[in-house]
């Protein structure tokens, strides 16, 4: 045997056995991927950060004799047209061109200038071919003025006016005096905004409420005229009977499951009775929809009269506040600023009134970058960022801030988390802990994983069709085609019968410990499942066709402005919850199954029930994994755009989805969203050049938000893990 071993000729190791050439290949693939990511993030970071840096204001003289002023944005080589290149060749030959007018390859350069002054009938951005430029200088008083409307103004401040008198003259004096004037003007503007938003807004809301009250009373009166074969008392009796039945069934099942331990079931019984009492109390308190009574004709008339009276008072208030606003406006109109462009044309109050100099209160920020130090420029830069993050958008989103956008995104994400967390976690617990593992659970898992692959726009279409137009309309107006009362009560009774059948079968087919189920028992179990399904279907039918529910916002719908029956943040967050559900389910399932078997056995060995084991051992152990899944789902939801375009994101939302008026979170309101905002700025903006910088900055904010979410997931998971896994040995 030893000789045989010695005689075995070994082959040389073939080249293909070595991984060395492969290593370079694999590494380069990774490097390419990394470089692409770094380039993407770098581009977003650099472009996003430089948007708000104040560039110099340059004065340009052209060969044609034209003079203009603007802020350089960027410079690029280009291919000129034939006659342009002839002209440039002459210029280059004569030596009139400024330095650096041509690229190294001989092509002419052109520079994009932000020249502003749109109200003077000028394109706010302009490409200037550099060979045509005779001279460029940076005048000391060159000023970039950010205004509330019409975009920026580039020019030179001349004077301040009070009541038409020039109180200050000259560029430097005007600039230094403008600071105080600007503060006062801001105060006045804030006052006006407060009056408009709070006082006028409140009166407006009261008026709307009044109108709706009358409308509601009218609708109730209409409804009361329709007859119901069941008297109010009979309906009450039926309802209470059904509730009692439900509580009784629950108690019975519970008692059965607990194996007859008395104390626990008494507590459940108490809970059930409390629920019953609560429902009854709510029914009595609201008298709706169980009492079919509506106001009589006289009552309706008195309601109308009272409403009219109150409307008059409110309208008087409205006029009074308007007068206040007008007074402040009049005061505001006394202070004006004269600022002229290169050709000496003054910035007007509005394009329609070219003779009136602009008001001081129209100024948002005044930048004189040419003689400013780095510190001053930095101040402007930071204040622009601050405005961007905390202010509302102006000029159809091309100026101002994105605060409502960030706010909408964060609210949406939080609502999404609130919706998806219980759904996903409970679903995963059932799937992993309670359901018998087999073909059905495998199918469910495959289906869940497939859900993750469905294009998100499909969710958008579903959300619009189901949440907004079906569920929302139901909330608003009640069922579209209500059933007649008697068949409806039969449906409900059928559901009750199904529940009892299922419970009875559950008793009959109760598994005996340690024994295999007989064929009769498995058949009974199947029938039981069908009975539960039937009960759920009948209950769903009953709920969706109840003749006793007329919707919560019927009056608004009757006016043609649906409340929940349209796009809004609640439906958007539910749609996204559906979209991110697979992420949460998969993460939770993985986390649950990672809890060691020994922990569960230890808990069962102590006499814990399955639920106690889940609640005290499994869920805390799976916490980090569940949390990570949740945050990943939130990050995914925060970055989603396509479904949101369908179910609620808008270009400009008039109100934030959270406010100080009850119910504080307004699920029916539309909202703004970072992803949609980027799309809107990039492709729907009236002034693409002005919006470009904002696209980058908004993208930077979105990326930062998602990054922060992911980072917090990472940190949280690390911390929880450290707490759970400090095992010795």
């Amino acid at each position, binding site marked *: 045997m030893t000789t045989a071993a010695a005689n075995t000729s070994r082959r040389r190791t073939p080249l293909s056995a070595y991984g060395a050439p492969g290593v370079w290949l694999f590494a380069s693939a990774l490097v390419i991927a990394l470089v692409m990511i770094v380039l993407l993030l770098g581009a977003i970071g650099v472009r996003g950060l430089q948007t708000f840096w104040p560039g110099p204001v340059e004065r340009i003289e052209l060969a044609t004799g034209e003079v203009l002023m603007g802020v350089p944005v960027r410079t690029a080589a280009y291919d000129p047209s034939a006659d342009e290149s002839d002209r440039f060749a002459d210029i280059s030959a004569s030596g009139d061109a400024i330095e650096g007018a041509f690229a190294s390859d001989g092509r002419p350069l052109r520079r994009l200038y932000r020249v502003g002054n749109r109200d003077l009938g000028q394109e706010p951005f302009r490409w200037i071919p550099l060979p045509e430029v005779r001279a460029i200088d940076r005048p000391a008083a060159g000023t970039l003025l950010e205004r509330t409307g019409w975009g920026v103004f580039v020019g030179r401040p001349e004077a301040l006016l009070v009541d038409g008198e020039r109180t200050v003259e000259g560029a430097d004096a005007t600039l230094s005096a403008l600071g105080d004037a600007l503060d006062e003007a801001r105060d006045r503007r804030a006052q006006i905004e407060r009056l408009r938003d709070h006082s006028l807004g409140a009166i407006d809301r009261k008026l709307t409420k009044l109108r709706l009250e009358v409308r509601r009373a009218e609708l109730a009166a209409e409804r009361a005229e329709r007859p119901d074969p069941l008297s109010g008392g009979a309906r009450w009796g039926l309802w209470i009977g059904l509730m009692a039945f439900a509580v009784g069934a629950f108690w019975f099942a519970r008692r059965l499951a607990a194996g007859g331990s008395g104390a626990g079931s008494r507590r459940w019984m108490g809970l059930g009775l409390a629920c019953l009492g609560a429902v009854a109390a709510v029914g009595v308190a609201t008298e709706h929809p169980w009492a079919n009574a509506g106001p009589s004709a006289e009552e309706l008339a008195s309601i109308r009269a009272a409403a009219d009276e109150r409307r008059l008072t409110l309208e008087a208030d409205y006029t009074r506040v308007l007068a206040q606003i007008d007074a402040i406006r009049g005061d505001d109109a006394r202070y004006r600023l004269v600022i002229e462009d290169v050709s000496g044309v003054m910035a007007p109050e509005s394009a329609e009134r070219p003779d009136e100099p602009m008001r001081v209160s129209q100024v948002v920020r005044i930048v004189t970058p040419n003689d400013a130090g780095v510190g001053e420029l930095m101040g402007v830069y930071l204040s622009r960022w601050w405005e961007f993050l905390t202010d509302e958008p102006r000029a159809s989103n091309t100026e101002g801030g994105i605060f409502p956008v960030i706010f909408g995104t964060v609210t949406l994400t939080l609502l999404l988390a609130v919706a998806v967390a219980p759904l996903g976690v409970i679903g995963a617990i059932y799937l992993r802990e309670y359901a018998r593992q087999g073909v059905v659970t495998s199918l469910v898992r495959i289906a869940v994983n497939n859900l993750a692959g469905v294009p998100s726009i499909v969710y958008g279409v579903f959300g619009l069709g189901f949440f907004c137009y079906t569920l929302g309309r139901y909330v608003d107006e009640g069922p579209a085609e209500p059933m007649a009362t008697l068949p409806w009560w039969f449906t409900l009774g059928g559901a009750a019968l199904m529940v009892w059948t299922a419970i009875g079968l559950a008793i009959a087919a109760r598994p005996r410990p340690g024994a295999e189920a007989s064929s009769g028992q498995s058949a009974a179990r199947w029938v039981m499942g069908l009975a539960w399904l039937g009960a759920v279907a009948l209950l769903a039918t009953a709920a969706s066709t109840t003749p006793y529910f007329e919707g919560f916002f019927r009056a608004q719908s009757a006016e043609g402005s649906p409340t929940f029956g349209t796009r809004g943040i609640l439906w958007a967050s539910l749609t996204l919850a559906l979209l991110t559900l697979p992420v949460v389910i998969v993460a939770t399932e993985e986390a649950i199954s990672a809890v060691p078997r020994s922990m569960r056995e230890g808990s*069962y060995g102590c006499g814990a029930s399955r639920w106690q084991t889940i609640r005290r051992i499994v869920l805390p152990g799976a916490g980090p994994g569940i949390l990570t899944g949740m945050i990943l789902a939130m990050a995914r939801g925060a970055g989603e755009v396509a479904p949101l375009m369908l179910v609620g994101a808008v270009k400009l939302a008039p109100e934030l989805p959270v406010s100080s008026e009850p119910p504080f979170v307004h699920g029916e309101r539309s909202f703004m969203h970072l992803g949609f905002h980027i799309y809107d700025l990039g492709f729907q903006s009236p002034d693409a050049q002005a919006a470009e910088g904002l696209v980058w900055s908004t993208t930077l904010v979105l990326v930062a938000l998602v990054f922060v979410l992911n980072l917090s997931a990472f940190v949280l998971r690390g911390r929880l893990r450290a707490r759970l896994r400090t095992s010795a040995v």
Partner: protein
Amino acid sequence: MTAMTNTATTNGDHNVEASAQRYRLINEIRRGETPEAEVHPEVAEVESVVDVDGFSLWYGQSQALYSVRMRVPRGRVTAIIGPSGCGKSTLLRSVNRLNDLVDGVRVDGAMRLNGASVYGPGVDVIDLRKRLGMVFQKPNPFPMSIFENVVYPLRIDGERRRKVLEERCRRALEGAALWDEVKDRLQESALGLSGGQQQRLCIARAIVADPEVLLLDEPCSALDPIATLRVEELIAEISQRYTVLIVTHNMQQAARVSQFTAFMYLGRLVEYGPTAAIFQNPRLSETEEYVMGRFG
């Protein structure tokens, strides 16, 4: 190669022939029969807590226990020994019905705890497990504080009074000889304890609710020799108050801690009697060979 195989076969045949004369019971078991176990009369003289009566168990299609008949004496330590896969852990876990957690488990025959049926209809498994304490092979403290670990069985039983919890926690930790080591860090994570301390913590958890029987499933197999010694001392101490049923791989351990020993093989009980008799004067030659380490 062929020569070697031949030799092995011959040896094997020789062994079988030799053991055919010496190991009567084991050979019957190997043939798939279930012979009556050799039970010493001393066992019958003591009052029993757990009464296993013709108990069989199947994991799906494969049978793990064959009509086991065994009475666990009250207030004593009873050890179950036997080679791997002989069903000793399965028997232990049948007492508190932990095998119910495995899919497709089926049982036959009877088991009684203090006269009450364990597998009868209408038995509340939760309640049953509360009457038994169990310690596992690998220390499995829960990821919570030492205090919460010990009072876990009380918590799930709905005990909320702080005073009671603290008192019973202290008593259990003293009973598990752990109190002096952990009394100053009861609120710290139990996962920070050493392996031996963790196992004693698990014992404290098992005795905090005053179980009728303490089930120990190879409690020292994951511990180092010194920790093992401490746990063995602890078992001896605990046995003055509780009935203990211990499964062990370690023959010396069985000899040291138990008063009765059962020897199992392939799901059948082979010999059962006082520990001294089993180790020094067994009735069956196969038991003698096994405890001497010459078999199994």
